[in-house]
């Protein structure tokens, strides 16, 4: 018995255990997603997050300890963002053809993401700093953190709001767009990327390559637009 406790205390302090468990949790999440017939509400990110969060709570492990292992996975977000250049390039002809509707969808989607989040939050009486933290929630996290700092929000809260937004987007996008009878994978993917950044983009790639490529473009463009517009938005409405 003491052996097991010794082994646990040794492993739980090093990066190996939590790195491995992150991959295992993802494999379980992805397995559930496949078993459920790739249903959008069985989201692999959400399942793995919940499994790991429960495990941290159950074992009394701090997030800092966990992240020492998981950071190796987290780090790959950077090169993955760079890799989005490849689907952008291979869909370049389609992107150029639909530059105008994409630009329109970007402006409307991005403004709606900032405006409606704050409006609904204000209607429910959330305080000012929380509302400010909500403004960049649709942007990918590195941008959202910077924007939140600039406009006076709470960057650490913003990160959580960004992630929840991504998971919501990944879960609702397919049924929502089916309901609205939007079939074009370019528009479907792009709107998802604008509103739900990388997690939405990951979902779009599960559905269709074109949707994924356009989601990646939407994510990057909305990141740039949010960085530009958020300070202006705050000046106008706060």
């Amino acid at each position, binding site marked *: 018995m003491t052996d097991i406790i010794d082994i646990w205390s040794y492993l739980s302090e090093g990066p190996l255990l939590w790195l491995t468990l992150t991959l295992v949790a993802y494999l379980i999440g992805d397995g559930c997603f496949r078993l459920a017939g790739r249903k959008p509400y069985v989201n692999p990110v959400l399942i793995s997050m919940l499994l790991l969060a429960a495990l941290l709570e159950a074992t009394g492990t701090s997030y800092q300890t966990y992240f020492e292992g998981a950071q190796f996975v987290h780090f790959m977000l950077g090169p993955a963002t760079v890799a989005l250049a490849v689907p952008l390039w291979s869909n370049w002809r389609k992107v150029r053809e639909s530059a105008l509707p994409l630009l329109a969808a970007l402006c409307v989607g991005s403004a709606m993401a900032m405006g409606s989040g704050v409006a609904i939050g204000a209607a429910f009486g959330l305080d000012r700093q929380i509302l400010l933290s909500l403004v960049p929630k649709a942007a990918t996290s590195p941008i959202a953190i910077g924007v939140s700092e600039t406009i006076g929000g709470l960057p650490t809260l913003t990160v959580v709001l960004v992630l929840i937004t991504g998971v919501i987007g990944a879960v609702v996008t397919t049924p929502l767009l089916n309901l609205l009878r939007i079939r074009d994978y370019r528009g479907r993917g792009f709107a998802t990327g604008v509103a739900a950044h990388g997690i939405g983009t*990951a979902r779009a790639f599960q559905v269709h390559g074109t949707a994924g490529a356009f989601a990646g473009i939407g994510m990057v463009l909305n990141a740039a637009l949010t960085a530009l517009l958020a300070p202006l938005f705050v000046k106008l409405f706060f």
Partner: protein
Amino acid sequence: MILHFGIFLGFQLLGEVLSRITGIALPGPVIGMGLLAALLLWRPPIGTAIEGTATGFLSHLSLLYVPAGVGIVQYLDQLSEIGLPLAAALLGSTVLSIGVGALTFKYVNRLRGVADETPA
């Protein structure tokens, strides 16, 4: 494959350096993505060479968000206090943003007389 990852990391590095030097409000990886896209448009054979690696890598994009997502454990108390209004704001706003964004794409295309593209 090592070379291909080297390309992604190299462009990220380049993006980080440019982001610092120029003070642009975009993160390094986003700048790196733009530069790599420009390179591929200029030299398509490079794109063909790295396409397989990029597609395989991006098919597991979900995994990469898990570590940051688990960070939610740090905010459970804070979130439970304001959970309902926040959930309403996040859900309502995300639904509206995806919906009006996609509808805008559709109707601007229709105004231009461009048909929907519906792959089988």
